[in-house]
């Protein structure tokens, strides 16, 4: 990491000198000033990740920030520590609006208050929820032990069903003296209250009230359980807030109970359309902590799998997006056909079509089985280029598609950066930021490919950029399948339990939906002390409201489709 000169802040900014840690410790009262300088003077214009860690033994919380320059380069990590019983940190929402949802998440799950945040409500859990589940002293329903493996499993099988231990009704903790009959959902009021109220009068003196409409949570266009609360003037969107968390399962708490290896199959379930990319990010983070290398052949296979994942994800995204526009299922089934062929390869290599669980620390679970490389070659040299062109011919010039998408749902370059948008959403707004180029990981620096970028920032560009990316991925694949060497696929012996050196690590990859990051803190034991996922589906929604302002209600669906979210990852 580069060292920067922060001497003007005196003792308020100090280098984090804990063993295995990096970055700077900033005192809470200087945080806003520091962040402003970081953005305006040092060029760190992109605040990618905000999260918290509960250091319960030391009686404090730490808020961890990862910032980047959109022109590329390594991250700058800075942290703020506050006492556990007075957990208040100034909000950075004015400097980096992309912190909005992430600060709300840290408030929801850890109970850290961000002063100055205009809308600090719970985001993943419901408003009547008691406690903050990522605190180390919080225990979930069906709690058994702090860490796995549990003792009841072996050598005496004390078999019980989880639900028998915790009959329905006792597995939710309510606040003291909670009476469901009398409960007024404060959060709902707050939600609607946070959508600006307004009233207009037209020339003739006719008054129009605002109207609040809920789309979802059960709505076909949301691709899952997801709600949009919108304020309308006639059909025009005045303000809009996404409501999520219906699929929340506290992935991160589960991750902190699990051993490092046990988390691997759980990452599959984040963005379940691109499990191999999730594996990749997590493996990188743990490998950083363990400080191990990956053999050449395994690196190639990793890249091949990650790029195939991107292709099938984008195919699915395009197909479903067309569904959202009302092109009912023909385009999406055309896309799904090609995706099936890619999934056939996943099944052959990893054993599963979607829940691949294929990466291991220092390598892979197994080598490519006989015949699979040929299948991949068939696809990347023959079928996929042909079918991508067909898709393009089929859709891109279609007048209906164009009239619904060109110039709609505009996100400016500045806003895309400001709201910490990632992946195709960021690049379609004219920011050529791709981690594979900006801070290459694995062996991406060896391949010849272009960073797909489009400049109009509208729905159409967010559609077409996915086709561009498929083409670039095919390019990478064509090189990778030709160059792949023979050899080992795993460094050292595969291990299911290991001690991981204490410290922190942030592993990030350019997932199909954007920057997918895993922030890990190890206390030197076999289970991660903190396990956080920087989920692109979640953070990309920060810009959703601003993108929709001024559009017609029917276009909301198109904008959402163009962001491409997966609720498994959004809600975690």
């Amino acid at each position, binding site marked *: 990491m580069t060292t920067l000169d922060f001497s003007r802040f005196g003792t308020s900014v100090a280098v984090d000198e804990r063993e295995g840690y990096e970055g700077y410790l900033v005192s809470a009262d200087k945080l806003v000033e520091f962040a402003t300088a970081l953005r305006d003077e040092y060029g760190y214009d992109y605040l990618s990740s905000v999260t918290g860690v509960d250091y319960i033994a030391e009686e404090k919380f730490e808020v961890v920030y990862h910032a980047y320059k959109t022109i590329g380069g390594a991250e700058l990590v800075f942290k703020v520590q506050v006492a556990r019983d007075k957990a208040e940190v100034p909000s950075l929402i004015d400097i980096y609006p992309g912190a909005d949802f992430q600060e709300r998440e840290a408030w929801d799950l850890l109970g850290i208050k961000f002063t100055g945040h205009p809308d600090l409500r719970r985001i993943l859990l419901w408003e009547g929820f008691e406690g903050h589940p990522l605190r180390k002293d919080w225990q979930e329903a069906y709690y*058994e032990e702090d860490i*796995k*493996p*549990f003792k*009841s*499993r*072996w*050598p*005496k*099988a*004390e*078999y019980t*069903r*989880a639900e028998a231990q915790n009959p329905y009704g006792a597995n939710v903790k309510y606040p003291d003296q909670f009476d469901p009959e009398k409960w007024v959902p404060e959060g709902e009021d707050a939600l609607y209250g946070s959508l600006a109220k307004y009233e207009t009068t037209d020339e003739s003196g006719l008054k129009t009230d605002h109207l609040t409409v809920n789309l979802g949570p059960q709505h076909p266009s949301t691709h899952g359980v997801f709600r949009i609360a919108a304020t309308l003037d006639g059909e025009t969107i005045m303000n809009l807030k996404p409501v999520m968390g219906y699929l929340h399962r506290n992935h991160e708490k589960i991750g902190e109970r*699990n*051993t490092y*290896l*046990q*988390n*691997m*199959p*759980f990452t599959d379930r984040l963005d379940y359309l691109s499990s191999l990319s999730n594996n990749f990010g997590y493996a990188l983070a743990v490998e950083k902590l363990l400080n191990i290398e990956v053999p050449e052949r395994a690196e190639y296979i990793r890249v091949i799998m990650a790029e195939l994942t991107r292709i099938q994800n984008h195919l699915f995204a395009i197909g479903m997006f067309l569904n959202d526009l009302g092109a009912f299922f*023909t385009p999406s089934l*055309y896309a799904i*056909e090609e995706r*099936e*062929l890619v999934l*056939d390869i996943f*099944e*052959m*290599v*990893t*054993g*599963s079509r979607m*829940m691949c*669980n294929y990466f291991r620390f220092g390598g892979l*679970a*197994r080598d490519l*089985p*006989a015949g699979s490389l040929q*299948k991949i070659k*068939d*696809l990347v040299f*023959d*079928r996929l280029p042909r079918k991508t062109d*067909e898709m393009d*011919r*089929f*859709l*891109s*010039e*279609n*007048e*209906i*598609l*164009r009239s619904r998408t060109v110039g709609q749902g505009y996100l400016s370059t500045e806003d895309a950066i400001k709201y910490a948008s990632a992946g195709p959403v960021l690049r379609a707004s004219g920011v050529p930021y791709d981690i594979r180029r900006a801070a290459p990981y694995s062996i991406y620096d060896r391949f010849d490919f272009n960073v797909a970028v489009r400049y109009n920032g509208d729905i159409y560009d967010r559609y077409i950029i996915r086709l561009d990316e498929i083409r670039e991925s095919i390019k990478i694949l064509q090189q990778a399948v030709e160059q792949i060497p023979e050899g080992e696929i795993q460094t050292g012996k*595969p291990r*299911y*339990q290991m001690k991981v050196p204490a410290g922190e690590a942030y592993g990030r990859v350019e997932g199909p939906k954007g920057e997918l990051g895993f922030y890990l803190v190890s206390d030197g034991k076999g289970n991660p002390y903190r396990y956080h996922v920087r989920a692109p589906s979640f953070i990309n929604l920060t810009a959703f409201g601003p993108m929709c302002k001024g559009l017609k209600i029917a276009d909301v669906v198109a904008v959402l489709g163009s962001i491409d979210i997966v609720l498994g990852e959004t809600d975690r």
Partner: protein
Amino acid sequence: MYGKGLLKGLGVTLKRFADTYLDDIKWMGKRYYTAEGLAHRSSKDAKGIFTVQYPEEKLPVPEEFRYVPFLVYDEGEDGEILNRCTACGICSKVCPPQCIWIERALDPKTQRPIQEPSQFIIDVDICMNCGLCAEFCPFDSIKMDHDYEIASYGRTVHHLDDLLKPASYYDEIRPVNSTREAAARKEAEEAKAAKKAAREAKAAARAAAKTD
């Protein structure tokens, strides 16, 4: 010209539509319900209709396909069940959702634990089909099955009797893996035997030296 894009798009769908029938004619009825037909429909050259008429037609699963775990047993001389599992507990420790319960058997006389499970329970409804148990079992005992038609009306919990399947079944569903594993086992055994022989030879030599 307005509408050109639309026409181009419609051309793509029309071609697909025609392809389905052209391919049907080319295959002269063999496109469906035959292994070659299925293989063709899931190959890079597939055209036209793509769907498989499950359950009349089934896609073959690749060797690495994993569903739920089962236990492999070797068949003794008279069909006796020789469970490979030694109740070492590794699979239950590695299992992410902790859905494997193992009870180690006790010697009826001494009440000391022996290397055999007296009960083995997998809560299949909780199993996440990750395959880690099979990956880390040191005795090639727990393996992932190919049989995916296990829907039931109640909860699926497999006990030792449900889990045990013969080694011949395993060899059949995973020929490459089972051959490789058998070779590795043989090699390990031979190495062990060679070591033992060397040790015995050494001891004999020492004994001979002593008597001299």
